């Protein structure tokens, strides 16, 4: 019963998990491991979710924390785990072509260059979260979040002036 509820929550938020995995791991094998680790961490804490924050805020926090720790440990986990052969969350074959789209590639190329905290920040921004929500997920002030996003904007402008 609990597992059915969990699967339903994951189904509703699979997009969010997929995007975090994609931004933090460029390697497909590592990405599968990260996806698995995020799902395990979400399951471990599922019974403790008390509804004080929105479910998406809770998922963002756990998924980003897991991704950052995973990223820092140089994707070591892939050596330790019996990976699933296929991803649990995946895009159907023909549509995954969109991930090869020039603009999407450029976008991921830009995200790839950011450090793990700025990656989280930009992901939350691109996902249309308000500064208040971004601040709540990351644990920084709203002003801080706004300042950082504006700095990233400037950095991006400099970087892509000639494009």
């Amino acid at each position: 019963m609990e597992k059915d509820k969990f699967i339903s929550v994951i189904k509703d938020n699979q997009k969010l998990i997929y995007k975090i995995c994609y931004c933090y791991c460029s390697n497909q094998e590592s990405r599968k491991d990260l996806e698995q680790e995020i799902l395990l961490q979400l399951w471990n804490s599922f019974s403790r979710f008390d509804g004080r924050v929105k479910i998406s805020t809770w998922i963002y926090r756990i998924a980003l924390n897991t991704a950052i720790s995973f990223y820092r440990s140089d994707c070591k986990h892939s050596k330790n785990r019996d990976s699933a052969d296929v991803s649990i969350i995946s895009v159907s074959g023909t549509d995954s072509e969109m991930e090869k789209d020039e603009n999407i590639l450029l976008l991921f190329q830009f995200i790839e260059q950011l450090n793990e905290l700025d990656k989280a920040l930009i992901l939350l921004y691109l996902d249309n979260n308000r500064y208040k929500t971004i601040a709540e997920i990351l644990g920084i002030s709203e002003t801080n979040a706004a300042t950082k996003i504006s700095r990233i904007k400037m950095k991006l402008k400099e970087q892509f002036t000639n494009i």
Partner: protein
Amino acid sequence: MELDDLKNTWSQYDKMLADNLRLNEELLRKLNLNSSKREMQKVLVYELINIVTAVLVIIFTLWLSVYYINLLRFCIPGFITIAVSAVYLILGIIRTKGLLNIDYYGSPVVKVQTEILTLKRKTLHLRKYELILLPLLLLPLLPLLFKFVHNIDIYKELSLLVFEVVLITGLAYPLLMWTYKHFYDKKFKNAENLLAELDKFKNEE
């Protein structure tokens, strides 16, 4: 190109994902959801092993010290070993408590990452003292073990005693310091740098 252009691209991407993402429910059900090999859990197991080992050493050495209570040259080193093991035990408890206190699931990203890195830095710092203490644990314990296991009074076998002291102080110390420098020092500095980065991220406005 500006961030707003990227935001449009991201929205298209998001729409594509909304239409085409598939969750493999069967695979998710099959996944052993209690099998996380998270780094912190491995550290916790390691610390628990440390604590149990320290407790066992304390119990065993205490028993030996009481057994040789009339032979001061054995029971005093025994009590020194107990004292050093107690330090190991306390350090292990401090780290375990720190690990258990981190709220991995309810706290914001920056807070969790700061707590993890602070604990990592503290652990690596304490590891240095543990390595320094290791010869102090072994040096007094060996005479006691020689007596108990082989019934050899190491204080009467001068060459054996000198060998023990030279081996532990002459070789073990430089080896342990080398170990710290090559395995822990870099990680310690790395944790410090990441903490500084987090601090900057949290405080700059």
